[in-house]
């Protein structure tokens, strides 16, 4: 008999849709991007796909690290409008 207690199972979104936290959104200028992958490497939340370099805006918190670290400076942080 399994005791009832705080035992959790892995599940995406378990801490909420953190994209809602964002006030600025990263917008990549694909023309300039050299696909170096540095943005994906440094994104703390791992919301940049390492292959496609797509940013998952459902979760991206808009921290701006990707923009700050991009060697090509091709990510712009744009104010969210709703």
């Amino acid at each position: 008999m399994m005791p009832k207690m705080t035992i959790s199972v892995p599940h995406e979104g378990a801490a909420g849709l953190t994209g809602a936290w964002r006030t600025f959104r990263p917008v990549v200028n694909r023309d300039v991007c050299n696909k170096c992958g540095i943005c994906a490497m440094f994104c703390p939340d791992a919301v940049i796909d390492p292959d496609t370099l797509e940013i998952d805006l459902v979760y991206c918190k808009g921290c701006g690290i990707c923009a700050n670290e991009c060697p090509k400076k091709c990510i712009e942080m744009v104010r969210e409008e709703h």
Partner: protein
Amino acid sequence: MTEIPKEEMILKCPSTCAGCGSLLALRYILKAAGKDTILVIPACCNSVIQGVYPYMLHTVPVYNIAFAASAACASGMSEALRATGQKTNVIVYAGDGGTADIGIQALSGALERGEDFLYICYDNEAYGNTGMQRSGATPLGAITTTTPNGKTVNKKDLDRIIEAHNLPYQATASSSYPADIYNKVKKALTIPGPKFIHILAPCPPGWRIPSSKTVEIGKMAVKSGVWVLWEKENDKFTISAPSRAAMKKPMPVIDYLKAQGRFRKVDEKTAAVIQANIDKNLRKIAIEAAQSEENI
């Protein structure tokens, strides 16, 4: 770099603050550790960011434990696993408070007994989870909610304290150098006995920096010599590449201090003391590295 697995071991998306260094570090720790791993986490930011019952984001088992207790918990786990023939990695991921302050007794005991586990301290230099009170690891001059005028005593030298326990493996790392973290964790996990890695993990709200600056500030810490990346395998002490480079001509620490709101009350005198501390420490580390070279 190419060897780092692409698979993420943490699902989207923990409730760390935007730009959290400790999360960035943990991504690479778990990539290095792989699935046969149990994570032990004492009270800290990383205990609350996992998601809310009944769900969690980590894809390895996570055992949350009381604040003072992580190394003792890992001791019990590792002894039980080894006794039953299991090789599962036992990794503690604890904050600086849970390591240098309230958790140091359990840690020191586990190290003395030679338990087989890896202890990783992510150091955001304060009690982040409770809103940035000073910890033993808070550096001189830093403002926290319990040091409103800046801390008046030095950061506890956790690494030398741990070093005195003569571990088979010990290293420092930084969330701004993920590959270095990955490699160090990988290596540590091949070695039996107690291992310790101390990761500087910048924390935007605590350090009063924009969330975009986490990686940049972490690099500045290394460039200025505030933070030195090294590893020690038994008696072999090696300065890691980024710090070797930085130590040739360290950035003045004032640039590092100025970039952070928490140091805004540091006056010139204190800044000079901080610089002098760094200079002294860098000399010492250089000597240690040189001596270690010689001995080989």
